[in-house]
């Protein structure tokens, strides 16, 4: 699967800005910067990883800048970024 650099989301409060690019090491690496990292950092990373797994996306580096987004928002932003990065439309 060819991965291009792609992003989705904004830096508004309540949103998450997700950038996806090709990984040099394979697998999925997640770099998270969150305003609620102390309380919800692990949970947010898990939602990102689960979403990518459901989409069968691997070999990516994810950089996420979170401003307190809810799980549904995180899933939507990660999905949109993944579709843009892979060119595979999952909504059809």
């Amino acid at each position, binding site marked *: 699967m060819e991965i291009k650099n792609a992003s989705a989301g904004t830096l508004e*409060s*309540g949103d998450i800005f997700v950038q996806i690019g090709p990984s040099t090491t394979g697998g999925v690496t997640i770099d998270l910067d969150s*305003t*609620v990292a*102390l*309380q*919800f*950092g*692990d*949970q947010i990373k898990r939602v990102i990883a689960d979403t990518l797994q459901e989409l069968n996306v691997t070999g990516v580096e994810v950089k996420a800048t979170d*401003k*307190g*987004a*809810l*799980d549904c928002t995180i899933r939507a932003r990660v999905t949109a970024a993944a579709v843009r990065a892979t060119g595979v439309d999952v909504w059809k």
Partner: protein
Amino acid sequence: MSSIKDRAQLISAAAQKMNKNVYDDARTIKSITHKSEMPKEASKVVTLEEAIRGTGLKDGMTISFHHHFRGGDKVVNMVVDKLAEMGYKNLHLAASSLQDVHAPLIEHIKNGVITEISTSGMRGALATEVSHGLMEKPVIFRSHGGRGSAIATGDLHIDVAFLGTSSSDPAGNSCGYSRSENGKSICGSLGYALPDAQYADKVVILTDDLVAYPNTPNSISERNVDYVVVVDSVGDSSKIASGAIRDTKNPRDILLAKQAAKVIINSGYFKDGFSIQTGSGGASLAAVKYIRESMIEKGIKASFALGGITAHMVKLHEEGLIERLIDVQSFDKVAAESIKTDPMHKEVSANEYASADEPGSATHYLDIVILSALEVDTKFNVNVLVGSDGIIRGAIGGHPDTAADSALSIIVCPLLRGRIPCVVDEVTTLITPGSTVDVVVTEYGIAVNPRRPELAERLRQAGLNIVDINALKDRAKSIIGDAAELPFGDKVVGVVMNRDGSVMDVIKNIVD
């Protein structure tokens, strides 16, 4: 016939009996110089350095400041910079509150100039550093009423107060506005500075508008002032309406404000002659707009509005809907102008505003207060000081004072702020005890303290959505999941005082 000469013996005998001297006319010296030509040596106007030396300030003493310029304050940084330059160490900084703009204090703390802080709140970089253990001694947090009380009783003794004022004459008569053409910085009420002016051993006024004597009507009297220092600027008035004050356009805040207004109108306390106060949150300020219509419709007038006075309150007052304004802090420029021109808009000192042990405190006469919150828990306890991430990011203000003294205290907060829940199992830090909180308004329903069943019934009758506070907490949790435990360390970085002078909670350091 009895002349004064004939009575000399009796005068002398009366004086002796009273242990007083007999009046000696030869000792009377009358000054006949035109007062405008009086020698300038008598003036209290000196440089900041001369004033500091003159007060006899020593290492280890307590200095105080007010926060009426909020985010625009220039006095704290200016004075502490000068004290550092003069080599002072181990000072206790007792401010009525601190803001983002006071981040330069971090360096002064590291250098040992400031080793103790007492305040109502703290924000920004200073608060973050303190939360991580910057200071050896914990910061003492008091409510505004609690601080006024502590100053009056001597619990908080102030050696030297440095008070920024918008105008002063050379004798020190000063206020938070200016009647001269040169007025630069106005803040309106000087309520939080008045206990300091009254009780501090020495008082230094800093002003950017030195006017001719007499600068009346004045808030601070020359009898309490030792020195007057003229500076370029004491504060940026345009930043008064910063920090916690927002005029909201947020639709959720407007929804909350409308709900809060319905609670007030149907509470049983919405009667002619009622009194009201609003806190500084967007929704609580906006609630005033929505009770206005109902006041007009039902012909109800308020006897007074208290506290942080806003443009909304001034408008209702000018429309005749609120008879009097009692103002400890002017929240915007409209309020600051109004206190200058309107005799029914009264300035009040912090201890006469909200001290528990001051019988004349205005809060004792308060019917309704609308307040905001960072967190409310299922016992109705409220936190307005420490964020859900364990970092200090707010101020106690008059929250616990008004909640305790009012007949009806209403907390307005959203269920969630982003991913942060506002209704929780237990507040991160206890600021306002649940025993003093009556109603919590959220966009998912209104919770009434079980101590007030009659109130819950009235609101239910009015068709409001009354819910169990536990249901609100569960609803928040179902959306956001379980938060991880905060990484608190073992160091106490803050102590929260109750308004009665007892210790209510401590804040531990965050390790990350």
